[in-house]
């Protein structure tokens, strides 16, 4: 009997690696490999007709962090990502709460309506915003009906990029928050209300602390996606608006400066990782406290 149990355990310890092995190797090669390649390229020397000459130089990083233009692009990217994420949180939390706590029989339909935009490519949806925001687009036409002679200029502005980003990211935030809120025992809220706490206090002392891990995950997801946005930034932001992902494309394809493109890609990667790790640790600490 003991031999049979030992044999079974031995089988399990060899089975798991065998089954996970191919997928792990595939991910290591297809994800980690290119990242290492980009890191290597970021340390190479730029040559317009060779794209990147093998070398080990920190010159590209020095140029990136001492050039006001590149720092401006980083600042714009972080600002847009932060504003978009906070907007998703502010707009998404009430929606998620309603979905989580709602007793309507249309709950399934509401979730489908929420996820329906995800079936359409973000680029297509961004083009829709372009039609809406154009000078003679639908938005100005509608404003013109109510206030004749008045028009807005949203196209090629930071506001347009944020609106476009929020429209793409909101479903992710709502769905993440909804499952977090569903995990909160409703009786805790009832108990707090029963003890005389007004709704704002119930939210602040009961709902928000318990939903914080879900909010953190939703925020990391939205922030990362917003930091890496390309089509929304290019189509709605215009030529004067620069974010990191279009900068990587520009350096890589237009300037043929693969070294600088590698630097921009690494900076983007490290920024995303730093945020994800930092936010996760902050939430964990708060929970332990």
């Amino acid at each position, binding site marked *: 009997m003991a031999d049979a149990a030992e044999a079974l355990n031995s089988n399990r310890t060899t089975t798991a690696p*065998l*089954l996970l092995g*191919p997928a792990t190797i595939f991910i290591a090669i297809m994800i980690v490999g290119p990242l290492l390649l980009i890191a290597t390229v970021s340390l190479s020397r730029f040559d317009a007709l060779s*794209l990147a000459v093998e070398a080990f130089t920190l010159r590209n990083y020095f140029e990136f962090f001492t*050039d006001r233009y590149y720092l401006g692009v980083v600042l714009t990217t972080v600002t847009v990502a932060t504003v978009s994420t906070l907007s998703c949180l502010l707009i998404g939390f009430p929606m998620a709460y309603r979905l989580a706590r709602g007793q309507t029989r249309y709950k399934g339909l509401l979730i489908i309506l929420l996820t329906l935009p995800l079936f359409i490519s973000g680029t297509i949806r961004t083009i829709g915003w372009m039609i809406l925001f154009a000078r003679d687009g639908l938005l100005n036409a509608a404003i013109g009906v109510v206030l004749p002679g008045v028009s807005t200029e949203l196209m090629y502005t930071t506001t347009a990029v944020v609106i476009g980003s929020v429209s793409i990211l909101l479903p992710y935030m709502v769905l993440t928050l909804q499952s977090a809120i569903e995990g909160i025992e409703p009786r805790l809220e009832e108990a707090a209300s029963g003890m005389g706490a007004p709704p704002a206090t119930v939210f602040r002392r009961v709902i928000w602390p318990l939903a914080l891990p879900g909010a953190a995950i939703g925020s990391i997801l939205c922030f990362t996606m917003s930091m890496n946005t390309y089509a929304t930034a*290019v189509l709605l932001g*215009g*030529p004067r608006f620069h974010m990191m992902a279009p900068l990587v494309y520009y350096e890589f394809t237009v300037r043929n400066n693969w070294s600088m493109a590698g630097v921009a890609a690494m900076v983007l990667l490290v920024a995303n990782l730093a945020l994800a790790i930092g936010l996760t640790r902050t939430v964990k600490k708060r929970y332990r406290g």
Partner: protein
Amino acid sequence: MDVLLPMNRRRFLAGTAGAGLAMIAAKSGFAQGSGDLVVATWGGDYARLLQENVDAVYIAAGGGSVIQDLGDEESRVAKMIAQRRLPSGTWDIASISSMNAAVLKDSELFEPIDATKVPNFAHIKADLADPTFIPHNYGAYTVLYNPQTVATPPKTLGDLRDPAYGGKIGLTDQGFINNMLMGALYASGNPADMESSKAILLEIKKNGVRFYPNNESLVGALKSGEIDVAPGFYARMLLWKQAGVSVEAAFLEEGAIVQVTGMAVPRNAPNKEQAFAYLNAMLDPKAQLAFANAMSYWPAIDNVESAGKLSEGLTLPDPALKMVTPDYAAAAKVKDVMGDWWRKEYING
């Protein structure tokens, strides 16, 4: 389960690994070697007209099938440089413009053209002929304006400093090099001296410029009245006018910038013989005439009228549009630096 298919974990994993390797090997077998001619070019109307006019002549002359790889020029240039060390590239022909042809001229990326295999090479206009870059057509970059709102068109680029145009000037980011060549032509008479263009461009910007990513967004702005004037291609003006947009071209005293679009054969092209035959088809008078009349760019050959009459729009009035061909070789040397200035200081300054 063992009755139908003797299978265990090891066989399953080995099988899937083997299947994966087989798929990779088979896919690589589909690469070049089929004899199809691959032409890397711009999409949209350009690709369609190539297919309708040039491919037809090529196939009628005994050529095989033609596959188009569509994309923008900058990524095409990057790919060509990236695959230059490969024994066999992925394209037989690459479409590029005169600026990039000058940038890549000394890089030994392109195959010198064997004129004996491209008989129509002899009819290329003298000032467009080049041993590695075969011109397809050329256009003029000048100032376009809305005749309904602009009573007196600008006579020079400097007229865009006039407060009458304040806030109604459009510039495309995509055309930044042409904008700077035009500025240099105005400022110093030498388009390649792009450093001299900075002052006039900054003055025009002070008068109120709206930036657009490309020609498509520019025409939308012209149509909606957001802008009244914008540097642009004469050919685009003709096409937009045909589409009902109120637009005309101003003939500037200093002249318009000539830009040539053409094709080159990469040195590692897999099917060079077919590539030369395709270039010959591209220079065929019938193909040149059809392309010119459809896209409104001027043909690159001197015997196009043997195939028919050029459209009225391409017949320039008297006095004719003064056209200046920049020294693209000199301009290519400063292209990157000027691009940095445009992006970092001009647009974002």
